[in-house]
C-alpha cells in the first residue's frame, strides 16, 4: 500500500459510524452476539457499531479486550 492509499483509507469516514458513546453503550451486547453467533451476525445487527469499531482505535481495543475476557482467551 502506498502512502497516498494509506492516507486515503485513514481519511475515509463511514456515515453509519455511530461514534464512541453509542458504540460503548451496546458494546457488551455486541460482544455477546460476536461470541455466540460470529462477527458477521453482530455486524448485521449493529452496522453502525461495526463501522465505528473499524475506525476507532480505542473502542476497537475495548472490543478486543472484552471479547478476550468473555471468551476466556485473555491471558
Amino acid at each position, binding site marked *: *500500500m*502506498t*502512502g*497516498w*492509499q*494509506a*492516507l*486515503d*483509507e*485513514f*481519511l*475515509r*469516514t463511514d456515515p453509519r*459510524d455511530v*461514534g*464512541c*458513546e453509542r458504540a*460503548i453503550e*451496546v*458494546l*457488551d*451486547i455486541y*460482544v*455477546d452476539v460476536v461470541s455466540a453467533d460470529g462477527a458477521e451476525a453482530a455486524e448485521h445487527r449493529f452496522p453502525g457499531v461495526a463501522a465505528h469499531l473499524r*475506525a*476507532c*482505535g*480505542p*473502542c476497537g*481495543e*475495548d472490543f*478486543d*479486550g*472484552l471479547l*478476550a*475476557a*468473555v471468551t476466556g482467551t*485473555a*491471558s
Partner: protein
Amino acid sequence: MSSAEFAAAASVRSRGPLDEESREWLRCLTVPGERERALARLHQLLLRAAHAELRRRSRPAVVEGREQDDLAHQAADDALLAIVGKLDRFRGESRFTTWAYKFVMLEVSAKLGRHYWRNPPVPMSGDAWERIPDRLGADPAEHAESRELAAALRQAVTEVLSERQRQVFIAIVIDGVPLDALAFELGSTRNALYKMMFDARRKIRAHLVAHGYLDAEGGMP
C-alpha cells in the same frame, strides 16, 4: 420473602428473560446477607480481567510489575463502584459478566490514558509529517512521495481545520498521542475528540480530492 428479596425479585422480573447465571448474580448482589460475598467474588473476576487486559495491551511492555498491579487494582475497584451504581440500569440484553467486564475495559483505557503522561515517549527527530505514511501502515515510501504527501496534508490541515481541530489532529496523527491520553490532558472525552477527528478527516479528504491528490470515489486520480 423479605422486602429486600421482593425488591430484588421484582427487579429481576422487570428485566425480562435473563440467563441463569446473570439472574443469580443479580439476586446475590441485591439480597442482604449474600451481597458482601457476591461483591468480593465480582471484584476478584474484575481484578483478573484487569490484569489480563493490561498484559494484553502492554505488548511491548508499557506498564509492568508493581505499576501494572496498582493499575489493575484501581481499574477493578473503580469498575466495581460503577457497576454497583448502575446495577438498576442492567437490562439483561447481554450476560451480566459481559456487562460487568465492559466497565473494566473502560477503566483500563482511562487509567492507561492518564498513565501515558507519566512517561511520554521522547519525540523522534526529523519531520514528523513525513513519517505519516509509515504511521498509517504504508509500505516504505520514496522520500519524494513522503515529502509531497506531508506538504499536501500540512496545507489541508492549515487551511480547512479550525484551531481546535488542528490541535487535536496534530496531537493524535502527527505526534502519536493516544486518543484517551489526549482526552485526559484536554479535560475532554473520547467521544468528543473522536467526533472532532471524524469531521477533520472528512474536511481534509474533501480538500485533497479538490486539489487532485485523492480520487473522490477511491483509488488514485
